[in-house]
C-alpha cells in the first residue's frame, strides 16, 4: 500500500526545525521508508503547484514550523491545512511565536526604518523601500504583504497537535512521527511533549535547597557559575521550573540557564506571566526599596520571560509607547 504522505513547511523560521529533522540521522532514513515526504522545500524540489495538485486531505499530516507573518505564509498554511488530515505546529515559532515573535515589541514602521533608513551600512541616500508591487522594465513584481504583528500557527489555522522546542528535541520528533505512522496520535489539541516542568529531568535538581530563596539576581557573564549547583540557586534566572521537559536539560548541561523554549505546561495559560510569578516569588527581599532594587536586576523582563512566547501571550504585543525601563522608543 502506498506510504502515508506528509509535508514539511516553514514560515517565519530559521531553518533550525528543518535541521532538527535532518538530525534524526539514521532514523531519517527509517522515517522516509515509513512516510512519503511530498513537500519539504529545504531538502526536496517539490513546488507549490505540487501541493496544490494534491487532493484535499491527501496528506496524513503537515509539519509546519515558523511563526506566521506574511500573506504568503498564511496562504501556504491555509493550503496545507486544506490538504492535510492533521496539522502539527512544529517548534516554538509555530507553537508560541518563537524569537521572531519578539518583533511584536515594535510596530512595523519602527522596524522598516531601522532596516531601510537607520542602518549605517545603507547606501546613501537610503530612499528605496521594498514595495508590495513594483513595476520593472520587464513587468511587475510583487512581494507578500506583511502583517503588523507576528502570529502563532493556531492564530491562523486550526492546529491538531503541538510539538514545542527551539528546535524540538529529535527524540520527541521521532516519537511524533512514529505515533503518526502507527496511528497512535493522542486527542486533538495535545502537546507532543512531557506535560511536566524541566526540573523533573534536570541533573542539578537534587542540589536545589528545599526552601529556595534568592537574595539577588545575577547575569551569566557577571560571575563563573558552578556547574554542579542548581543555577537558579546561584541567582541566575533559570526558567526550568516553568518550562516543559523533553529536552533533557541540554542548556543546563552546557552550564547555562534554561530560557524557556519548550513553552508552558497545559495548566498554564500565559507562559511569561506564570514564569515571572515563579521567579519573583523566590525573592528574599521584604521591604519596598529592597524589592524594587532586586526586581530591577531583571533588566529585560519581556526578553527574559517572553523570549519565545510573546505572540502566544495574552497581551500578544506592545500596546503603546514603552514606559519605564524599556530601551525602545
Amino acid at each position, binding site marked *: 500500500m502506498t506510504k502515508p504522505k506528509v509535508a514539511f513547511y*516553514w514560515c*517565519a523560521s*530559521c*531553518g*533550525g526545525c*528543518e*535541521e532538527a529533522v535532518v*538530525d534524526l*540521522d*539514521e532514523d531519517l532514513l527509517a522515517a522516509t521508508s515509513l512516510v512519503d515526504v511530498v513537500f519539504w*522545500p529545504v*531538502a*526536496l*524540489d517539490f*513546488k507549490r503547484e505540487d501541493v496544490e495538485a494534491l487532493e484535499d486531505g491527501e496528506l496524513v499530516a503537515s509539519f509546519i514550523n515558523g511563526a506566521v507573518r*506574511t500573506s*504568503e505564509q498564511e496562504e501556504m498554511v491555509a493550503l496545507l491545512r486544506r490538504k492535510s488530515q492533521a496539522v502539527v505546529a512544529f517548534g516554538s515559532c509555530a507553537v508560541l511565536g518563537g*524569537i521572531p515573535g*519578539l*518583533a511584536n515589541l515594535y*510596530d*512595523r*514602521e519602527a*522596524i522598516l526604518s*531601522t*532596516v531601510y533608513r537607520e*542602518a549605517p551600512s545603507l*547606501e*546613501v541616500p537610503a530612499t*528605496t*523601500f*521594498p*514595495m*508590495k508591487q*513594483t513595476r*520593472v*522594465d*520587464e513587468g*511587475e*513584481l510583487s*512581494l*507578500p504583504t*506583511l502583517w503588523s504583528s507576528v502570529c502563532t500557527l493556531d492564530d491562523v489555522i486550526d492546529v491538531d497537535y503541538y510539538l514545542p522546542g527551539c528546535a524540538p528535541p529529535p527524540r520527541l520528533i521521532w516519537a511524533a512521527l512514529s505515533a503518526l505512522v502507527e496511528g497512535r496520535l493522542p486527542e486533538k489539541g495535545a502537546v507532543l511533549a512531557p506535560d511536566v516542568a524541566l526540573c523533573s529531568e534536570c541533573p542539578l535538581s537534587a542540589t536545589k535547597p528545599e526552601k529556595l530563596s534568592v537574595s539577588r539576581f545575577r*547575569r*551569566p*557573564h*557577571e*560571575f*563563573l557559575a558552578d*556547574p554542579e549547583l542548581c543555577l537558579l540557586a546561584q541567582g541566575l534566572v533559570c526558567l526550568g521550573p516553568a518550562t516543559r521537559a523533553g529536552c533533557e536539560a*541540554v*542548556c543546563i548541561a*552546557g*552550564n*547555562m540557564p534554561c*530560557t524557556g523554549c519548550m513553552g508552558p505546561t497545559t495548566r498554564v495559560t500565559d507562559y511569561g506571566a506564570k514564569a515571572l510569578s515563579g521567579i519573583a516569588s523566590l525573592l528574599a527581599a521584604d521591604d519596598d526599596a529592597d524589592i524594587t532594587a532586586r526586581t530591577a536586576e531583571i*533588566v*529585560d523582563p519581556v*526578553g527574559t520571560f517572553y523570549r519565545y512566547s510573546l505572540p502566544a501571550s495574552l497581551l500578544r504585543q506592545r500596546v503603546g509607547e514603552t514606559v519605564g525601563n524599556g*530601551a525602545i522608543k
Partner: protein
Amino acid sequence: MSADIVIDPITRLEGHGRIEIFLDPGGGVNRAYLQIPELRGFEKFAQGRRAEDMPQITSRICGVCPMAHHMAATKALDDLYKVEPPPAGHKIRELAYSTFLVEDHALHFFFLGGPDLLVGPDAPKARRNILGVVDAVGLEVGKEVIGVRRQLRALMTAVAGKSLHPVFGLPGGVARPLSKQDQEESAAAATRAVNFGLFALDAFRKIVLADKAFVDMIMSEAYTHRTYAMGMVDAANRVAFYDGNLRVVKPDGTEFLTFPAREYLDHVAEHVEPWSYMKFSFLKEVGWNGFTDGVESGIYSVAPLARLNVSDGMATPRAQEAYEELFSTLGGKPVHHTLAIHWARLVEMLYGAERMAELAADPEIMNPVVRTVPTAVPREGIGAVEAPRGTLVHHYRSDEAGLITFANLIVATQNNAARIALSVDKAARSLIHNGKADDGLLNRIEMAFRAYDPCMGCATHSLPGQMPLLVEIRDSDGALLGEVRRD
C-alpha cells in the same frame, strides 16, 4: 503583466525565495529576478535585549548556521566588554567552530547543493535530494555521510551545550571547560572527519571532474562572473574562519584592500531593490553600478571560492594540497566559476577536519580556566567570523547596563546577494530559449544560486513594515503618464 515562468518556492537552500522569469517576445529571457519574500527584524527587536543574550538570540537568524551567528555575536561581546578569552576559552571556541564548519559544509554537499552533482541536474524532481544521493553513492556511503554528521553534531552538543542554537558563548570565554571525554571524542571525530573530507574530494573527482559534461558546465560562461572577492585571512594571508583581517581582491586576483573587521562600515555598503527584502552588499570604494560584474562594479562574492581566491593558501597541509589541485585544474587563481564553489567547499571541509585534529591534540585546551569575567562598562563592540556561507559581521552598541541600543548585522549571504542575482539571471538567460523550460532546465537555473549555499534566513533577518505601493501608469508604448505612490 506578471512573470511568465515562476519557480516557487526555490528549494534545497535555507530560507524562502522565488524566481520570476520574464520572457522577451522571442521566447528568450528578458530578465530573471530572485526575490526574497521574507524578513523578521532581528536588528530591531535586538534593541532592549541583554547584550549577553545576543549569541542565543541571533543564532535564531539561521538554524543551519546558528554556530556562526553565535560565534560572531560572542566575539562582538568580547569587544563590547573589552575582555580577552583565556587561551583555553579561545581554543574551545575554535574547536567547536571547526567542527561546525565540517558538518555544515557536509550538509550542503550531500543534502542541499550537492545532489545536483551527485544525482545529476536533470534527474527527476523526486530524486534530486539526499535520498537520491544515498541511492547514487550506495547505502554504506550514505550511512557514513549521516554517521559522520551525527558524530560531529554530538561533539558540538558536548562542547557548546547545543549543536542547534549553541549556548556556550559568553563575553570573555566559554561557559564550561572541556572534559577528558570531550577531548577524546574530539580526537576521534577529527580523524573520522579528515578521512571523510578526503573521501568527499575523491567522490567529487570521480563523479564530477571525471564527467566532461560537468566540467564544461562548471567552466561555461553561463555560470561565470568576474567579481571582486572577500574573505578572512590570518597573519600569513591563509584562509581563516575564527579570527583574522578581511581581505578583498580584484577580479584579476590582485589585492584590493585588507582591513580589520572593526572598519567594515568604511568599506561595505548595502543597496536596496524595491522588489526584494534582501539588501545587496557592495564595496563602497567601487560603488553600486547595477547588477553587472567586472572591476567597475562594487559587487563582490564571499564564501568558499572567494576565500580561496583572496588567500595565499590553506593553514593545514592536506587542505593545502587540495587547494593547489583546484587552482591548477581550473586554470590558476582567481577562479570565477560559480559551480567551483562546491569544490572549494570540500577543500575547506578538509581544512576544518585537520584544524579539529590540531586543537584536539593541544594540551592547552584542557586548562580549566576558560573564561575571564568582564569588568569594563559596555559601550560598542564589533565581532566577525567567516561563516560557511561567507563573511559575517555583528555590530552592537549598548547602554551601561548592557542593554542593546543598536545592532547592525552584515550577514554572509547578503555579501553574495548581488552576485547570486547575477548568476540566476545569467543562467536563465543562457538556458531558456523560445520560451521552453522543463523541470530539469529550471533546476539548472536553481543550481546557479545553490552553489553559493545561500542562507536567505540570514540574509533577510530584518523585517519591513507596511508595504508602500508604487503603481506606474504607462501608455501603450511605455511612456510614463503618471505615478501613484503611497508609502
